[in-house]
């Protein structure tokens, strides 16, 4: 079986409209979360990270659209346009498109929204993006809660392994809406301050908004300096509860074990773990249990939620892309917001951005419905 790589990538976020603008600020330990007052979304002030409407619209106009697009479509299109252009790959029938989103254009259900309600169908979002870029193949829309972004990378690899595609563009995005914030608020899961993953004083999540995209390819001639090989990936359900994380970390532990079993790596050979770390009490505790069961308690790890908040369907993809850059720069990024360990099992939380020789990393995510996904990546060296 051919190797499968992650290659050209883009992050559209409050930091800027390419991956490097985010990476350079993360390296400086600067969060993009801002205290926000927006009563259309939540009556109380909240912390979030969003690119402003004006700069999104300006960037989108440069793509010369011929009709009106929703905010999420604009974000996804800006990100994908960059990744497609960089990769210089013709969009033939060997090229797939996967969209990772939990809620898609959910804002069109708002009465004041000018778009027709049909736009709320996730397949319609896929169709809009497909035709904007004139992909030959239909978009595959994956909507699997908060593991969608990293599962989308795994799905892309599976389709390439199966011979369906040679290249897959994976794009992920979700909006910060009243729909989402009122729901997480009803769960009393929202933090009133910038989130503190794995910290003793953590008080819940922030929701953020980004669009991210990456090329997944079997072509070793289409690699970038931060490219990684996908070594193994797996996704397991907790079979326990639809909204509460497993108390034994069952699904996450199993996902990590199965992903590792596809590689020759042992736990001690994983250089860095990019956790999910939403900063809710139960999620972070569950992760600590799963990582200890998997023998990863000494491996340097972080959650990147302190930089962007939880970006839902984009998060797993966004954090995988940052992991690629982390490896390339041989730099461990600090787990922003962390002060003192607040989970029942030991974890090696990165507390200061440090230089370290890195060649492998594990990305994990967990979500509603009891879903978990783990994926292992290895740096591609200059001579392949």
């Amino acid at each position, binding site marked *: 079986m051919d190797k499968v790589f992650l290659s050209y990538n883009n992050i559209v976020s409050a930091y800027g409209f390419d991956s490097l603008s985010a990476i350079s600020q993360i390296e400086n330990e600067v969060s993009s979360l801002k205290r926000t007052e927006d009563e259309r979304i939540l009556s109380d002030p909240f912390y979030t990270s969003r690119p402003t409407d004006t700069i999104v619209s300006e960037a989108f106009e440069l793509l010369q659209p011929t009709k009106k697009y929703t905010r999420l479509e604009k974000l996804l299109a800006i990100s994908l346009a960059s990744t497609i252009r960089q990769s210089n790959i013709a969009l033939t029938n060997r090229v797939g498109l996967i969209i990772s989103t939990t809620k898609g254009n959910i804002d069109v259900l708002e009465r004041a929204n000018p778009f027709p309600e049909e736009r709320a*169908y996730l397949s319609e979002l896929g169709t809009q993006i497909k035709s904007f870029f004139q992909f030959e193949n239909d978009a595959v829309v994956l*909507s699997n809660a908060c593991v969608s972004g990293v599962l989308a990378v795994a799905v892309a690899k599976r389709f390439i392994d199966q011979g369906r595609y040679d290249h897959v563009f994976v794009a992920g995005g979700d909006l910060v809406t009243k729909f989402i914030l009122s729901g997480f608020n009803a769960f009393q899961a929202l933090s009133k301050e910038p989130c503190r993953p794995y910290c003793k004083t953590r008080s819940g999540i922030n929701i953020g908004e980004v669009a991210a995209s990456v090329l997944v390819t079997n072509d070793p001639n289409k690699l970038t300096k931060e490219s990684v090989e996908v070594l193994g990936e797996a996704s397991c359900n907790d079979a326990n509860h639809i909204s509460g994380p497993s108390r034994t970390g069952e699904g996450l532990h199993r996902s990590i074990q199965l992903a590792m079993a596809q590689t020759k790596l042992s736990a001690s050979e994983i250089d860095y773990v990019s956790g999910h770390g939403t900063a809710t009490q139960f999620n972070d505790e569950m992760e600590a249990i799963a990582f200890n069961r998997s023998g990863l308690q000494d491996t340097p790890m972080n959650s990147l939620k302190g930089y962007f908040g939880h970006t839902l369907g984009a998060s797993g993809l966004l954090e995988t892309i940052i992991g690629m850059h982390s490896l390339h720069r041989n730099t461990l990024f600090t787990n922003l917001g962390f002060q003192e360990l607040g989970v029942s099992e030991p974890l090696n939380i990165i507390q200061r951005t440090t230089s370290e020789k890195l060649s492998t990393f594990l990305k994990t995510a967990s979500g509603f419905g*009891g879903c978990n996904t783990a994926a292992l990546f290895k740096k591609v060296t200059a001579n392949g």
Partner: protein
Amino acid sequence: MANDYFIQAYSHIRNNQIWHNGESIFTADSADFSSFMKAAYKHFALDYGKFFKMDSLSKLAFMASNPLLNDEPEKNTALVMTNKAGSLDTDRKHQTTMNDYPSPAVFVYTLPNICLGEISIKHQLYSENAFFVFDSFNPSTLHDYANALLDSKKAEKVLCGWVDFEHQKHDAFLYIVSKSGTFEHSLETLNRLYQTP
């Protein structure tokens, strides 16, 4: 990757009727989907209180998967489901209530993959899950994805199909892909079985 796979069993739910391997196993003259599901629940003596907390999409997926998974000993059975409406039926509920009394019990079902979690809990499956959204039944994607899971040994069997619910209209077609069975796992078979219960 030249493994041959088969359809081991399949089910349909349409127009207030449930079929297992093409044979009708329950029908009810119900006014709405909720009472149809309640009648089916009683008929099959399910004894699973959580069922009544589920949203319509989860009830539909749960009820369609039940005849297929009840006697299925293979626990490494992946769940791969697809539909058009996603969780829009419940999304609209949350959208209308969120201003006054947003409910966690409604909000959690505003994700289509929750139905996979419900099935995993009931049948104790710690297996692969994925939920995809398409404009219509998409046998080609399901076929390739199921084969990928089986070829890579990520799953021993795959329960896949279409579970769509919106405005009381319900359409479920689920099937188990396995190493043995009656029908060949091909696009032709999937199209034929989807059309006719």
